[in-house]
């Protein structure tokens, strides 16, 4: 048996076990244990196969079989993986496994846990399909199934009234991007006559077709990877259960877009215009995400906006011609963002709120969670020697290098990305420090802005004991601790030659170039710390002044989207319905009514009295006689 056929198991097992899991009924007890078993088994098996292939097999792995021919277009069912793809699959597997284990604790009292676990499995399988598919259609299958799963999972929480709307928004916004994705794939496939990626990559496209197809593909990428202007769904998606946020942000969904550009990079390299579009979107996204993160009060929303910004770094790296840098950042980001979300889940689990303004002073009660946050936020901000430092450094170096020209992208794009990325280093450091200080230091604000809920007096019964937050139980704690390891150390993998060749990564060189981002980092973090010291216990975001509400609302882009897209569509739909009823259908009904009316008229005419009718008949006969008589 070809080793590559083993690769089918990587996406296949979680997908299959997920489908099996969907048939389980809701409820606690038996179905629950079975569902947990299926979920963990799916992630574990695909993780094991990935590791096996990563260690043992010779690259690249290719296996394909004919799927279907539609007209002249051949669709293959293909597995194809290079080392880089397997590393991504590994990251997906690890995060998915952590999320599955964590969810057992997080959803311990939810009767709808079985379908949830199954959906997580399918979600994971779909992402693995995108990563390992050797065919554009296979990739599209995984791509869209992820959208559907994200819809189901974001809408899972029945207690949140905003959850269904957020779920619909996530699916719809990404689906709008997918209009472009489908058309882009269609253009690529029609020209190449097949949807097999290896053939598509080597096919010789005309530059016009290529640029059009790639920009269309980028629309889909922007949707899935939450890039401007299709990023609006991601912050709202925080209505989903926290483990789902971890899954969406770290390993699936948002990573998929970056991965697809990476996969199709040989084509992108040939199209400076497409890279320029990507670069501009990336620069806007980096700053938009970072600035919006500064003013959020919801812990998860800070992290969500930080994801938007960090994915911008990845697409920025792609735009300046460094796919390796993008992938490296994708991997480290997967580690530290999964860690941050799972740790955020622990905080929310303990204090019962998402709001930073109701936290504070958590450090002493939740040491494990606190240190996880320190590692995660440090990596996010790019603090050496944590993982994020190395990968972000790599992206910055690539952008700086591309400003010299000679890369696939125009020089101005490189400048744009570089400047945006540098600014964002400072902003990221600022909001990471703010988050850490505001949530974990100072006094507890667990009882609201007015302090603890007790009154001066002698009645002890009126004094409510503050609820003491604590670190989460085992199933939630272990995944957090496990993820802290790669979040801290994964960056050092850049020194491992095997890893470097797999990603085609350049060796890290800690020269003078490192100084500038580190200075910016220190400035950002220092500013936040200084503000916190200046007015202790108060949100450093007050120093943003009038910009605060603008940032908090994400630059009001939701409102813009509502005004420019949602409402016009609704208006057109109303118009279409009115037209359908008042014009199309009314003309049909009108034909019917008119016919009946005509019938009645003729019937009426037949009702005239006999003498008069006889007279008319004779008159007619006479007339005809005269007529023909005259003619002959």
């Amino acid at each position: 048996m070809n080793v590559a056929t083993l690769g089918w198991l990587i996406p296949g097992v979680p997908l299959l076990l997920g489908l099996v899991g969907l048939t389980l009924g809701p409820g606690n007890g038996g179905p629950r244990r079975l569902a947990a078993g299926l979920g963990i088994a799916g992630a574990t098996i695909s993780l094991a196969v990935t590791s096996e292939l990563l260690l043992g097999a010779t690259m690249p792995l290719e296996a394909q079989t004919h799927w279907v021919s539609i007209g002249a277009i051949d669709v293959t069912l293909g597995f194809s993986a290079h080392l880089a793809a397997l590393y991504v699959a590994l990251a997906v597997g690890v995060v998915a496994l952590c999320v599955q284990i964590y969810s057992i604790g997080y959803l311990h009292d939810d009767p709808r846990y079985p379908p949830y676990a199954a959906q997580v499995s399918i979600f994971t399988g779909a992402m693995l399909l995108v990563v390992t598919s050797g065919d554009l259609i296979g990739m599209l299958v995984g791509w869209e199934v992820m959208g559907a799963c994200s819809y189901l999972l974001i809408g899972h929480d029945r207690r949140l009234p905003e959850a269904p709307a957020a779920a619909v928004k996530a699916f719809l916004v990404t689906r709008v991007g997918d209009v472009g994705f489908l058309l882009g794939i269609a253009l690529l496939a029609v020209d190449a006559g097949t949807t097999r990626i290896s053939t598509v990559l080597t096919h010789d496209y005309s530059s016009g077709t290529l640029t059009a197809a790639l920009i269309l593909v980028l629309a889909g990428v922007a949707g899935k990877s939450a890039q401007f202007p299709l990023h609006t769904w991601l912050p709202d998606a925080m209505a989903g259960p926290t483990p789902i946020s971890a899954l969406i942000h770290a390993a699936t969904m948002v990573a998929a877009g970056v991965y697809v550009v990476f996969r199709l990079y040989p084509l992108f390299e040939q199209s400076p215009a497409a890279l320029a579009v990507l670069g501009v979107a990336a620069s806007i996204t980096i700053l938009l995400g970072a600035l919006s993160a500064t003013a959020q009060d919801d812990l998860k929303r800070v992290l969500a906006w930080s994801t938007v910004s960090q994915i911008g770094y990845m697409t920025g790296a792609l735009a300046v011609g460094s796919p390796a840098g993008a992938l490296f950042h994708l991997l480290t980001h997967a580690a530290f963002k999964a860690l941050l979300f799972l740790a955020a889940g622990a905080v929310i689990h303990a204090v019962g709120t998402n709001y930073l303004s109701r936290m504070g002073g958590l450090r002493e009660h939740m040491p494990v969670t606190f240190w996880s946050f320190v590692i995660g936020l440090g990596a996010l901000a790019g603090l050496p020697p944590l993982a994020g430092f190395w990968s972000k450094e790599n992206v910055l170096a690539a952008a700086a290098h591309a400003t010299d020209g000679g890369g696939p992208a125009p020089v101005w794009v490189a400048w744009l990305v570089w400047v945006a990325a540098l600014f964002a280093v400072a902003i990221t450091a600022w909001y990471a420090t703010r988050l850490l200080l505001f949530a974990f230091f100072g006094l507890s604000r667990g009882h609201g802005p007015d302090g603890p809920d007790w009154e001066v007096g002698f009645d002890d019964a009126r004094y409510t004991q503050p609820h003491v937050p604590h670190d989460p139980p085992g199933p939630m704690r272990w995944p957090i601790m496990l993820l802290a390891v790669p979040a801290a150390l994964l960056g050092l993998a850049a020194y491992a030659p095997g890893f470097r060749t797999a990603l085609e990564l350049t060796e890290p060189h800690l020269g003078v170039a490192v100084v500038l981002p580190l200075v910016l980092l220190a400035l950002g973090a220092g500013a936040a710390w200084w503000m916190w010291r200046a007015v202790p216990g108060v949100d450093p975001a007050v120093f943003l002044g009038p910009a605060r509400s603008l940032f908090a609302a994400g630059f009001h882009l939701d409102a813009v989207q509502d005004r420019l897209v949602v409402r016009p569509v609704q208006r057109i739909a109303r118009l279409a319905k009115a037209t359908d009823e008042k014009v199309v259908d009314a003309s049909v009904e009108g034909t019917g009514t008119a016919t009946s009316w005509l019938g009645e008229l003729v019937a009426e005419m037949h009702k005239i009295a006999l003498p008069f009718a006889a007279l008319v008949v004779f008159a007619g006969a006479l007339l005809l006689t005269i007529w023909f008589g005259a003619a002959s």
Partner: protein
Amino acid sequence: MNDVYPVLLVATLALPALGAAVLAVSPARRAGWIATAFAAAALIPIVALPFGHESPPPGNLRPWAEVKQSWVPALHLDFHLGVDGISYPLVALTGLLTLLCCGYTIWKAPDGGKPRTLLALLLVLETGILGTFLSLDLILFFLFFEVTLLPMYAVIVGWGGEQRRRAGRKFVLYTLFGSVLLLLGVLTVAVHAGTADIVALNGGGGLSRSTQYAAFALFAVAFAVKAPLWPLHSWLPDAHTQAPTVGSVILAGVLLKMGTYGLIRVGVGVTPLGARWAAPLLGILAAAAILAGSLLCLRQTELKRLIAYSSVGHMGFVLLGIATLTATGIQAALLGNVAHGLITGLLFFLAGAIKDRAHTGDLAELGGLRETAPRLAGLLGFAAIASLGLPGLAGFWGEAFAVVAAVRHGGALWIVLASVAALGGALTAAYFLRLLRKVTHGPVGTAVSPAIAGAEWFAWAPLVALTLAVGLVPTLVLAATSLPVEALIR
């Protein structure tokens, strides 16, 4: 050995007809089982038919099995039946859906007339529909096309909702209008070509250009009414909303397919020059149908009406595929036909189940289905997601490859049409998500009993399984289509 296939072909038609006749004289209590038995028996020759499939020499329309008997030579009417890769999936779908509907009716007969009569009508319908798909003679095709009309009218008027008479009347008059045009077209072709044999006529059969133009125009309008193509669709929502569940399933599942099948087999096959001449207009109308259908769905407030309008959009994709006149497009259309039959059949079953339980189909009054009836909500979610064209499920292939075919056709117009169709795909997602949000999420509206009866599983499970199977292995439908499609557009 080869002699058995013509017998099977006749048996496919004869068994349901015989079933209807037996029902007329059998006791009412046993009617359900008798009808189901005959519907199941009709599936046996249908399942056996593909074994007669030998790869034909390419380049010609060559059915796997054929029966040809002269009937009324003066009218060019032969009793000429045959099955090939284009018609077979629809034949199988018809057999399956009729069986499911008969089994479902044993458990739950809709209010109205006697269940026995309804079952007999379903079997007569099956005969008519199968005959339409199997006919290889234009006049015979027309006869079977007409046979389906009155039973469907009777089903709507006999077992429908409150405004059934009005809806039934509209349905029958509107489609009769289409039939008149079809008759004109059929006679035009038969008189000019001197034969009505579809095999002989394939590729034009020596018809002059102007005859083909005229005949295609007649065919196109006739089939567009049946399919229905926007703006000739307005009989559909009323008919669906008022029809009983099984009526809606048959109507959406297979009856509409007679229009798209006719357009492929007769329109494109017999009058190819006319098809090429009208293709841009057809494409524009198809894209308009996709957009109009999805936009109309966004504003619907009634469950069955929404699903009915969704058919307009989906049939738009099928017609877009046909209008490209490429092998890719026509194969996508064939896949889209079958997928729509499976998925919309399932959707109507589920809508019927919800309406029966909640006694309302008003979206504003439904809600919280996932709390009260999680399995029903799960199935509805599955069907809706399949219908919005999720890759990996049946609905995807037809819609995505209709878009691909339009791109492949090339030219500014077709690229625009492809974009409009793809945009329609996003709008389709919008209205199905709106539907799910209203029905399954949110606060509990009308309480719905969660129990699902065995007969319901019997009717739904095959559709769910096939939706998944066709999605994963589209070759199930497309296996034998490539040669006949090549022959069609040659």
